[in-house]
């Protein structure tokens, strides 16, 4: 992601003190544990002009859920202001930087999985697809029910592993049916989960994050390393 | 009055009132706007919707052709009792149509289990959905649901455009205060409980036929 942003001429900073947005605890109902972590996040990024995140679920946490979680916090208005400055990566490129072609070259067949937070909390469906269609030599093949949940759901994948795995089987079945080489998404957690099932079932399809595709070009040396195997 | 009083009325109402002292956030909605496109030609739309819901709709030009339409439907049905909503209009209409059928008028009582076909008027017709508006005043409750085939005789001036107009009609005519049953019927009885396959005639009529006279 950083590579792509730099390629389109932006200055990228990585605040090293950052840790986590707090979503795992929040989603588990442990709001008292999530709150200090969220407040810390707000402080760490307080002076950042624009924050870009390669994850739909983290972005949704800050934008949709921080106002509720920090409702009684002294940092509430900071959180609300922050929520307006946080963007998911594909959203940032298309809607803020107004760039739809980042000069990427990825000569492979790819299918796209709509991750739930990105689709339903952030309402982003077309932005990743616009970016993918502008990647040279990439063929985008839509899978059946790309918007159906992959089954990760954070701690759900472990607590209710059997349901999570069953959901993923359906998703991976739809992916395999497209006969593509790669499945991509804007959320690593989905890709981790889907990748786990694909590998276990011996599917040749490999997961790759959208940012890695956008970073790929004949000159880029990092593309190969970024592929989740 | 009620056998055991009205139960926990005061207790429940008090709990409701206590809860409502705390306001909740209203739903997040846009500005009010129409939900259905305006219906154009009422007759055309009604016929189109009947085709979708599998209601047989025959448009006739006068009493004679209405009689023919009704006779034709009766001829296509197996033998069995004919139950008719007792009104002067229908008494006059079905003269000569009922040969070979045992007729029971609604004034004689409710339809019997063996009723094959019924004929009633309607309170109105709804173009948007292809529905008939009916009530217990149209031959009683059973007339539209006991037989295997229900025939509705209506006239074109009974058509209203949409559901809002239908509800307004029901209210303006005071139907709730004059009838213990008021309803909309859209198509014949059906079920899709077996593998989502549509089967007609679950418990109510397998056929609903509207004879619509163009006065």
């Amino acid at each position: 992601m950083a590579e792509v942003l730099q390629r389109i001429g932006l200055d990228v900073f990585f605040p090293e003190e950052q840790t986590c947005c707090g979503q795992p605890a929040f989603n588990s109902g442990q709001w008292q544990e999530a709150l200090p972590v969220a407040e810390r996040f707000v402080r760490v990024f307080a002076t950042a002009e624009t924050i870009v995140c390669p994850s739909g679920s983290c972005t949704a946490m800050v934008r949709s859920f921080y106002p509720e979680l920090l409702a009684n916090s002294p940092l509430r208005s900071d959180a609300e202001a922050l929520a307006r400055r946080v963007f998911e990566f594909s959203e940032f490129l298309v809607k803020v930087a107004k760039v739809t072609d980042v000069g990427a070259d990825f000569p492979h067949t790819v299918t796209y999985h709509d991750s739930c937070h990105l689709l339903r909390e952030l309402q982003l469906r077309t932005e990743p697809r616009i970016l993918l269609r502008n990647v040279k030599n990439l063929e985008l093949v839509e899978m059946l029910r790309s918007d159906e949940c992959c089954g990760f759901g954070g701690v759900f994948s472990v607590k209710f592993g059997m349901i999570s795995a069953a959901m993923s089987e359906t998703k991976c079945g739809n992916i395999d049916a497209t006969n593509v080489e790669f499945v991509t998404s804007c959320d690593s957690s989905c890709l981790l989960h889907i990748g786990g099932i694909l590998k276990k079932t011996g599917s040749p399809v490999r997961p790759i994050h959208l940012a890695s595709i956008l970073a790929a070009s004949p000159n880029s040396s990092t593309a190969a390393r970024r592929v989740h195997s | 009055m009620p056998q055991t009083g009205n139960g926990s009325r005061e207790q429940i109402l008090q709990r409701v009132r206590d809860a409502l002292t705390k306001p909740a956030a209203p739903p997040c909605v846009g500005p009010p706007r129409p939900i259905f496109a305006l219906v154009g030609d009422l007759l055309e739309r009604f016929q189109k919707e009947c085709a979708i819901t599998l209601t047989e709709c025959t448009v006739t030009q006068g009493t004679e052709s209405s009689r023919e339409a009704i006779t034709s439907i009766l001829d296509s049905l197996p033998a069995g009792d004919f139950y008719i909503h007792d009104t002067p209009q229908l008494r006059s209409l079905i003269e000569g149509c009922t040969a070979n059928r045992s007729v029971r008028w609604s004034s004689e009582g409710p339809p019997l289990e063996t009723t094959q076909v019924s004929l009633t008027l309607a309170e109105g017709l709804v173009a948007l959905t292809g529905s008939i508006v009916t009530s217990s005043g149209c031959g009683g409750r059973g007339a539209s649901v006991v037989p295997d085939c229900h025939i509705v005789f209506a006239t074109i001036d009974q058509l209203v455009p949409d559901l809002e107009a239908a509800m307004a009609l029901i209210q303006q005519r005071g139907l709730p205060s004059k009838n213990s049953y008021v309803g909309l019927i859209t198509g014949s009885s059906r079920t899709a409980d077996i593998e989502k396959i549509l089967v007609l005639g679950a418990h109510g009529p397998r056929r609903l036929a509207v004879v619509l006279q163009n006065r």
Partner: protein
Amino acid sequence: MTTAAQEFLRKADEKSFDLRHRKTIRQGIDSYESAHNKGKSRFSDWEAARDRCAQIKAEALSRLDQYLIQFEEVVTSRGGYVFWAANSEEARNYVLEVAKKNNIKTVVKSKSMVTEEIHLNPLLEKNGIEVWETDLGEYIVQLRNEPPYHIVTPAMHLNRSDIAKLFQEKIGGVQTNDPTQLVALARRKLRQAFFAGEMGISGANFLVADCGMIAINTNEGNGRLCTSLPRIHIAMAGIEKIIPHLQDLATLWPVLATAGTGQHLTTYCTLIGGARRNDEVDGPEQFHVVLLDNGRTELLDDTEQRDVLRCIRCGACLNACPIFRNVGGHTYGTTYQGPIGSVLTPHLRGLKEFNHLSFASSLCGACTEICPVRIDLHHHLLQNRRNAVNSGNRPWTERLAFSFWRWMMLSPRRFRFFGWLGRKLMKAVRMLGLSGTRLDPMYKWTKYRAAPDFPAQSFREMWMRNHAANR
């Protein structure tokens, strides 16, 4: 862990990999999806329709006491009886009392989830009253002695040969797999019940305050027959079913039909305001309405989740839910399944025993997206989770784990260290060949999925290296 939670996990385990079940449900859902999408296209503005429904129900709830009183006044002015039941027991006992006082031996029932909720049938049967479920799906599960699988399509887990075998066994008649003939078999059998029935019990989709009428929607006509032929009619509904005006049905009826089955309107949209009048041909001699609280006033009191009471029981959220599709309706073990069941049951039956349902979700949000009355379903699941934690209804180990997590996350140094440690540990587990075995700390993950390949460096390490190189 409580018994209900353990049962849920056990059944989920059974059903999740039952491929026959998965296929049957998938077919049903696909069929629904296509009909639903077609149904939505009949509206010129479906979102406007959802808005209106949300507003109608919100208005009804905001003045719930006034509308309930108005409804009662009109019904009783026409000679009908209105009974207010605080809980299941009061509601059941009222029905039994009316049945006994009127020497009722046979009851025909139109579909009513509320009568399932209060477990009415067993009480009536124990008192020597024959109860016939007349909705075809309900009749089928009654014959099988099972609860309904889905609040709208109770038998969607069965295919035609399951039903054929069942009918052969319980009804007899010609052996057939053809749905038309199966329906005809049921029709003949239930027609006898309708005409013999002395009391009809129905639910109500809506209670209309201004004209004092109950609204019942069915496609089969069983709701019509149950309320026309027997001499007594009892309608039962939750207090939240009230709507202010008859005119509201012009929006609610087509939306309910679209969300429920993809139809423009349910075949029989029925309004009943009382027993048969003196000048009427037929109809019951007595009309009773039982208004049920049973935990609904507590939900009303929870201002954060009051909107849950807007639910019109269309079943759309069940159809949209990927968890429901995989574990099926019976796994929930509750009257109401799917997302609405997971949100509602902890309120109606206790957070302690049923909070696990709110955790059994990936929070994908498909339910909120489809809900025609705009209930914030998946957010309520999150709130139930928080409530469960705050009321001490979650295992202490969870709290401990997250306290540790918090401690780790409040320091970048600790975050980096434990990240590094985790990667090294996983590498060791892999090298020792323990991946996927019970000794694997990530067993709960690797039981179903291949372990992920952790990168050699974290992004942080990579960034620092590149920046050092660029300086």
